[in-house]
C-alpha cells in the first residue's frame, strides 16, 4: 500500500465513495431549513445522489448552513463543525451566508460565513429552490471527486485566523479545544 500508484487507486475509490455518500447534518438555521424536506422527499429526491440525513455531527459529512446565523447560533455551529469527523464539508446556503442578505445591517447576525468556517461551496438565492440545492450538492461532489474539497484542511491550517474571527463575535469563549 505504500506504493504511490496503489495509493492513487485507493484515493480514487475513497473519493468515489465519498462523493456518492454524503450524510448531511441539516443544522436548521434561518429560513432555509424549510427547503430541505422538499429536497429530500419525493419531488426532488436527493437520495438518488446518495445524499441522506444524519442525526448527529459524529456521523455527518456535510454541514449545511441553511440561512442567517445569529452570533448565539454561530457558537453552536462552530462546536458542531468541530465535532464532525474528517473529511467534512460545509455548504453555505442562501444569500444570508454569502453577504448577510437582508440581514446586512443586523446587530446580531454574522454576514460572511467563510470568515468563521471554511465554506466549500455556496448556493445563492433567497431562498434557493430545491433544484439549486441539488445543483450545489453536485458541485460539491465534483469538488470531492477532484480532491479539491479541502475546507477542513484549510481550517486546520489556518485555525488561528479562524479563531481570531470567531472570538471577535463570541466574547465568552468556553469551549473544548479543537485539536484533531
Amino acid at each position, binding site marked *: 500500500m505504500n506504493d504511490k500508484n496503489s495509493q492513487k487507486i485507493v484515493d480514487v475509490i475513497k473519493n468515489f465513495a465519498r462523493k456518492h455518500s454524503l450524510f448531511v447534518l441539516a*443544522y436548521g438555521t434561518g429560513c432555509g431549513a424549510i427547503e430541505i424536506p422538499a429536497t429530500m422527499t419525493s419531488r426532488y429526491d436527493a437520495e438518488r445522489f446518495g445524499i441522506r440525513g444524519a442525526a*448527529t*455531527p*459524529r456521523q455527518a459529512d456535510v454541514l449545511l448552513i441553511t440561512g442567517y446565523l445569529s452570533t448565539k447560533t454561530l*457558537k*453552536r*455551529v*462552530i*462546536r*458542531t463543525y468541530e*465535532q464532525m469527523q474528517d473529511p467534512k464539508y460545509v455548504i453555505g446556503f442562501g444569500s444570508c451566508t454569502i453577504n448577510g442578505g437582508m440581514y446586512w445591517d443586523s446587530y446580531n447576525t454574522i454576514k460572511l460565513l467563510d470568515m468563521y468556517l471554511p465554506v466549500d461551496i455556496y448556493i445563492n438565492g433567497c431562498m434557493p429552490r430545491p433544484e439549486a440545492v441539488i445543483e450545489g450538492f453536485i458541485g460539491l461532489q465534483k469538488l470531492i471527486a477532484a480532491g479539491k474539497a479541502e475546507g477542513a484542511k484549510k481550517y486546520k491550517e489556518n485555525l488561528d485566523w479562524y479563531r481570531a474571527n470567531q472570538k471577535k463575535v463570541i466574547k465568552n469563549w*468556553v*469551549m*473544548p479545544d479543537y485539536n*484533531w
Partner: protein
Amino acid sequence: MNSLVIMLLIYFAGAILVYAANKFSAVLRDVIVVLAGLLPVALFFSIPAFEAFQFRIAGFDLFWDLGSLAYIFEALVVVVGAASLVYAISYMKGKKNLGYFYMNFFLSLGSMTGILMSQDLISFFIFWEIMTWSSYFIVVFNGYKTNKIGLTYIFFSALGAYAMLTAIVMINTQTGSTMWNDFFIAFAGMSSHYQLLISILFIFGFGVKAAMMPLHIWAADAYSHSPMAYTATFSGVLSKMGVYGLALVMIKLALVSNHFVFSQVIAWLGAVTAALATIYALIQKDIRKLLAYSSVAQLGYIITGIAVGTAMSFMAGIYLAVLHGLFKAALFMVAGAVEKQAGTTDMHKLRALIRKMPLTFITAMVAIIALAGIPPLGGFVGKWMLYESLIGSNHYFLVIVIFFSSTAAFLYAYRFLYGIFLGQEEEEFAHVKEAPLMMLIPMLFFTVLLIVTGTFPGIILGPVANAMNHGMGFRGVQWEMSVLTNVYGDSIHLSVISTIVVVVFIVFALFLILKGRKGTRYVTTKDIANSGEPVRPEDNYHFALDFYKPFERAMAPLYRFKMSEIYGNISDGLVSFFQFTRRLYSGNGQTYVYYVLLFIVILLVFSNQLINR
C-alpha cells in the same frame, strides 16, 4: 479426630476467638478471620471422603455425615464464606463492633456447615436456629434503621422455624425416630393427611429461607441492608440452605413423582416469584435493592427447577444454585466496593465509575453476563438446561413465564452496569479510586471462577450428577465436561461456543482497537454531540431518573400487585376481626342466650347433612 467436627470446630472456635481477639488488637483479629476462613477451604478440598460421626446427648442420637448433595452446598459455604471474610477485612475497616460482626459471621458459617452435615432432625433444627439468629444479628448490625427490616426477617424466619419444629415433632410421634433417613423411609407409609401436613410445613419452613413467592417480602430489605460483605454470603449461600431443604423434601419424599399438584404449585410459585421479582428489580434506584430483588428472582428459577423434578431440571436447579452463589457474591462485592469507594449506592447519584474502577467493572460485567444467562458464561448453561427440561417435560407455559423473567433480567442487568459504571462523568466522583487489593482479590477470584465454570460446567455438574445418582434416587444421570445434552438427544458444545465467541470477539476488537488506536484519542464524556451546546462543567446530562418508564407504563397492571400490601391488609383485617370478637362478649346475659339459640338453629338446619354423613 473426625474432619467434619474439625471444620465445625474451626468455625465455632473462630467465632469465639475473633470476639476475644477484637478486645486486644485489630491485626490479630484480622489474622484470625483470614485463617479461620481459609483453613476450612484447605481442609475441605484436601480430604477425599468424610467419615460419619455419631454420638448421644441428652437422650437423643445425633448423627453427622456429609451427604453427596450437601457436599456441593458445603463447597459453596467454604468458598464463598472464605472469600467474603477476606473481602470483609477491607470492607468493614473502620466500623465499630467488629468482634460481634465476625462472631456472628463465623456462627452462621458454622451453623450452615452443621445444617449440611446433620443427618438427624434435632441437630438440623438447632443449627437452623443458630443460622437464623446469627444472620438476624448481622441484618440489624447497621443501626436502628434496620430494626423494622430485622423484625420482618425474624418474624418470617420464626414462623418457618415453628412450622419445621411442628413437622419434626409430628415425625417423631409417627416414627419414633429423629433421623432424616428413617423419616424418608417411613414417609411412604404415613397416612395421606400426615404426608400432606408434614410436607406443607417443611416447604413453608424452607420456603422462607429460599424467599419463595408469598414468603419473600423480608428478602429484598434484609439483603440490601446488611453489610455487603455479609450479604455476599447471605444471599449467595444462606438462602441456598432453603434450597437444600426444598431439594431434600421435594425429591426424597417423592413429592414430585407422587404428588403432581405439589410440584406444579411450587414450580409455578417459583416462576411467578422470578417474574415479579424481576420487574421489581428493574425499577429500583439502589443497586443493593436491585441485587436483592434479583436474588429473589434467581431463587425463583432454582425453586422451579427443583420442583419440576426431572433429572435435567433438578440438575439445572442445583447448578443455578451454585452459580448464583458465585455470581451474586461477586455482584454484592461490587456493590460493596462501590459503596466503600464512592460513598453511595444510589443510581440516581452514581455516575461513570468505569475509568476509575476498571477491575471492578470487569468483575461486574462478567458476573452480570453470567446472571443474564448470555453465552458463553455459566448462567447460560443453567438457563439452557432449565428451558430444555421444562419443554421436555411439557411445562410449556411455565417456560414462557421463566423466559419472560429472564429476558426482563437483561433490563436490570444493563441498568446495574450503566447506573454505576457508564454514563457521563461527574466532578463529584473524580477522587474515586479502584477498590483496595483485599477487596479486589475475592472479586477477581469469582471472575475467573465464573469464566471457567461457563466453559467447563462439568466441574459443577459432575458432583451434582454424583449426588443425584447416589442418594437422590435418580438413576443413570449423565454428565460431560463441556457438552450439554437435552431430552431429545440434541447437544451443544460449550467449548466450541466459547472458542467461537472469544475468537470472533478478539478479531473484531483487534480490528477496531488496532486500527483506531493510531488516530483515536480519548475525550471526556462531557464532549458529546449535543446540538452544538457545550456541556458546562456544572451540568450533567446523565440519564438515571425513570430509567424504564416505558416498561413501567407497559407493565402497569403487574406493578399494582404488591405482596407486602396484601400482608398489610391481612394484619389490618386481623386487628378488626379481633376487635369484632371482643365485641361479642357484651357482658349482657341476654346476648349469650341469643348466641346459644343461634347455634342450635344452625345445628338444626345442617343436622340432616351431618347425620347422614
